[in-house]
């Protein structure tokens, strides 16, 4: 199938194209230099053409997401999606059913999504949900920051850590490595409370040792995406010091910080939150080895879900409402609390403001990219509104005036922060940047050889409307959204890493396994082809 998109203004920052009118040609699922004259055409005059969106950090599949779905019957009743000749039915809300998740990402112009927190023990569950999430290519990150079997290796056989991590990725079909409050969740599961410092002891190691060992191993393996870190002390006043301490500990190794907004707080522990966004934006700007996604909160309903179970216990005490806790042996915790961010609430408004500060003070959009940590800070459906907040100063100022005044006064947003993101910068923070940070060379750009994932928007002054309803979305060369309607459902690929390892690590792990897990070592690796296919392997290797 071939297609020529003509006359649109193309934003392809990875290839230095910023709004030029040019054709984009697609053939056999790839971008090509040219197609024959008889190829089908899309007349994109008056439209903006970008690569398909890439979400670097969201929660869309697996036991935590599914437990959250089960908590939300009210949301689901209020937001239904009918079956059609090509589409399955489902329900929406902040945690949509799987089919609806895929459809709505496509309707938003997103074609690649990373599930950011998969317990390896539950890989089969994660994969089965992704199999039922159509339209998008998906990758997932495996949780390794509270794995006591790995702690044991870090302590006794550190030379094996690298092979063990590659083993875990191969066993699960994962793409990258996630640390969530390294050591803190395990310490909390032991009834000893959360960690407060990176030097607290847990199971014979410290968070600092875990971060060093795993970040180092990921670096040595040359994984396409560096270690993805959710720092300790999420949401706590003064946590920016922990964030900085984590970055110091990484000591020049590449790393991606998840939802930086939630880790950018000043103030005394136990006291009122303050913003430390300017300091962190400054630090990030000066350290090219680090990147982050923002984790913007948006006013309205959200569902907090995290492997950082102690955070959920604290949130539960704030809301007094629904709460799920689920401990996974050896590996992780999980907490879920439905939550609503309110503009008049000091803390919520400050969180909202800190996210905007990070965006507006960021020096390098390639390294500070867009997320709401869906659905923690808000649904992915709120991205268009967030884009408008970034692109439209008048709209932003109007929203600032509605938010809690004392909170907004604690930010620099009223101090002549009149920056407006350009379409090129939006293209960077929503596709080109995340793709580059993930090491997905075929994503996030429109050069020859890229995947034929393209989103075409009507150029509109209201950026929220523009980004909420793309005119066309093309996935793998097929037009899946036409005039804002889904016209075809298709299955995406699993994006998984290929990181070779010494098979001798099998025996090392087997010994540690059967004592610790309640499943057999031989049951653990996913081998079911229907869960793993269709997949694309992205090879690890030291960057040239």
């Amino acid at each position: 199938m071939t297609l020529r998109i003509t006359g649109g203004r193309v934003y392809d920052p990875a290839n230095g194209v910023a709004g030029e009118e040019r054709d984009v040609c697609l053939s056999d699922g790839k971008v090509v230099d040219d197609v024959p004259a008889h190829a089908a055409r899309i007349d994109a005059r008056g439209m903006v053409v970008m690569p398909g969106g890439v979400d670097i950090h969201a929660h869309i599949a697996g036991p935590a997401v599914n437990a959250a779905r089960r908590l939300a019957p009210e949301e689901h009743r209020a937001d239904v999606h009918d079956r059609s000749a090509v589409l399955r039915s489902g329900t929406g809300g902040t945690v949509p059913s799987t089919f609806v998740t895929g459809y709505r990402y496509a309707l938003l112009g997103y074609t690649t999504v990373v599930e950011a927190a998969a317990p390896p023990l539950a890989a089969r569950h994660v994969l089965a949900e992704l199999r039922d999430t159509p339209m998008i290519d998906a990758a997932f990150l495996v949780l390794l920051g509270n794995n006591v079997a790995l702690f044991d290796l870090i302590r006794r056989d550190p030379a094996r850590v690298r092979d063990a991590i590659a083993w875990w990725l191969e066993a699960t079909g994962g793409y990258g490595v996630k640390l969530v409050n390294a050591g803190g969740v395990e310490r909390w599961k032991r009834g000893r409370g959360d960690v407060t410092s990176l030097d607290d002891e847990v199971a014979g190691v410290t968070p600092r040792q875990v971060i060093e060992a795993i970040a180092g191993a990921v670096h040595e393996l040359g994984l396409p995406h560096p270690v993805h870190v959710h720092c300790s002390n999420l949401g706590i006043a003064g946590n920016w010091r922990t964030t900085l301490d984590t970055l110091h500990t990484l000591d020049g190794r590449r790393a991606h910080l998840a939802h930086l907004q939630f880790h950018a707080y000043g103030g005394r522990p136990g006291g009122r939150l303050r913003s430390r966004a300017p300091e962190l934006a400054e630090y990030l700007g000066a350290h090219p080895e680090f990147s982050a996604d923002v984790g913007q909160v948006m006013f309205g309903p959200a569902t907090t879900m995290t492997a950082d179970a102690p955070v959920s216990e604290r949130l539960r005490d704030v809301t007094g409402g629904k709460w799920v806790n689920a401990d996974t042996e050896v590996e992780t915790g999980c907490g879920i609390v439905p939550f609503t961010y309110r503009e008049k609430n000091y803390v919520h408004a400050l969180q909202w403001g800190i996210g905007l500060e990070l965006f507006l003070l960021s020096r390098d959009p390639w390294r500070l990219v867009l997320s709401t940590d869906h659905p923690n800070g808000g649904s992915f459906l709120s991205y268009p509104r967030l884009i408008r907040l970034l692109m439209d100063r008048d709209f932003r100022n109007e929203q600032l005036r509605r938010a809690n005044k004392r909170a907004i006064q604690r930010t620099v947003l009223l101090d002549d922060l009149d920056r407006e993101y350009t379409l090129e910068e939006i293209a960077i923070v929503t596709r080109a940047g995340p793709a580059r940070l993930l090491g997905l060379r075929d994503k996030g750009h429109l050069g020859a050889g890229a995947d034929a994932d393209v989103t075409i928007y009507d150029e509109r002054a209201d950026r929220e409307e523009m980004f909420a309803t793309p005119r066309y979305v093309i996935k793998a060369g097929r037009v899946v959204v036409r005039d804002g309607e889904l016209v075809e459902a298709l299955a995406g690929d699993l994006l998984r890493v290929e990181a070779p390892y010494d098979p001798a690590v099998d025996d090392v792990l087997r010994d540690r396994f059967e004592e610790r897990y309640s499943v057999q070592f031989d049951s653990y690796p996913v081998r079911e082809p229907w869960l793993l296919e269709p997949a694309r392997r992205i090879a690890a290797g030291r960057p040239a």
Partner: protein
Amino acid sequence: MPSSERAGAARHRSATCGGCGLVCDDIRAVIGDDGGLERLIRTCPLGDAWFAQRAGPRPPAARVEGRETGIDQALDEAAATLARARAPLVYGLGQTSCEAQRAAVALAEAIGAVIDPAGPLLDGASGTAAQARGASTATLGEVRDRADIVVVWRADPVATHPRLLERLRLPAAGRALVVVDERRTATAAQADTFVELAAERDLEALSTLRAHVRGSPIVPGAGLEPLDDLAARLRAGRNVAILHHVRGHVEALALHALVRDLFGVTHAVALTLRHEANAAGAENVLAWQTGYPAAVGFATGHPRASGELTGAAVLARGDADAALVVGSDPLEHLPPPAAARLRAIPVVSVDARGTATADAAHVAFTTGAAGVHRPGVAHRLDGVPVPLRAVLSSSRPSDEEVLAAIAERVARTGEDAA
């Protein structure tokens, strides 16, 4: 490798048992020279029965009105029966793989059916109660390695989950095992403490314990004095696990509320001791495909959940005019009015074992079993996904294949009609 060794290795195969919600994955199946199952290592009596029902003599692969037919003919008849129905019911799911459950939900949607997993009827209201307020839970390995007080509430796992105590390494020095039940069960005989509690007093007892845990002791009702001591032990525990099989909605709410409040004092989790091997998978697949973990109706073109849509309720009201039963024997467990209605309407049964429901069905498929003849995935009672393995070969189609083939025929019927 010498051929004798190869033959020897091939005769022992790793297997996973679907005999109860524990889904033990450490089973060895010894295969005889005839290719059949010679014996099993590490199974319990429930496991032996589970394998025997699937690996032993079974009804033919396809029957219509009790008479053996070809698969295709039976598929045509099943599809016609379901496509014709105005208000079909899809029921069961707890004893088949996640793959088949996924196909069952797709088929239910295609025919506008009500779909109800049997688990809530068999295992009580814990799942729907958790929807209301949430819950705290953990995997078996967490309970085994961390719980210093294990309370078995209104359940008798020695009978229903025979390897549970072994897998939790109980009884053990330094870890308390407490059983609360109306009579001294087989599990109680293994426990260090038995608290006798009449069947109808769960709510009262759970509320009393909760009040204790919150530090506001109330005067217990007559006969609940032993709960004073239990409350003190729960408070003093470092990690408490409550393994239960409470049935009613308010009782389940009270249990989750107790665990929630205990969490303010210590680490606490609860686990429902589900009977069917993949009851948890059925709820999970339904939840991810529809947003709801229990009975869902597709009559309006999208999922709609309601307590009034349970299979038992739909049948008792006479609202179902055909049923597809997957991996379940509802004639054995439905309340009499619902069972009577099920006997009166055309039923399509898809099950790897012979059942009373299949024998009475209009169309019955006796399939290749996930876990014996086919691979698949089951979610253990704690939600951990475990691989089911094929240890024997069979030319019979699997549940998943039968359901997909019916769906394909239903879709074709729809196209022809259009």
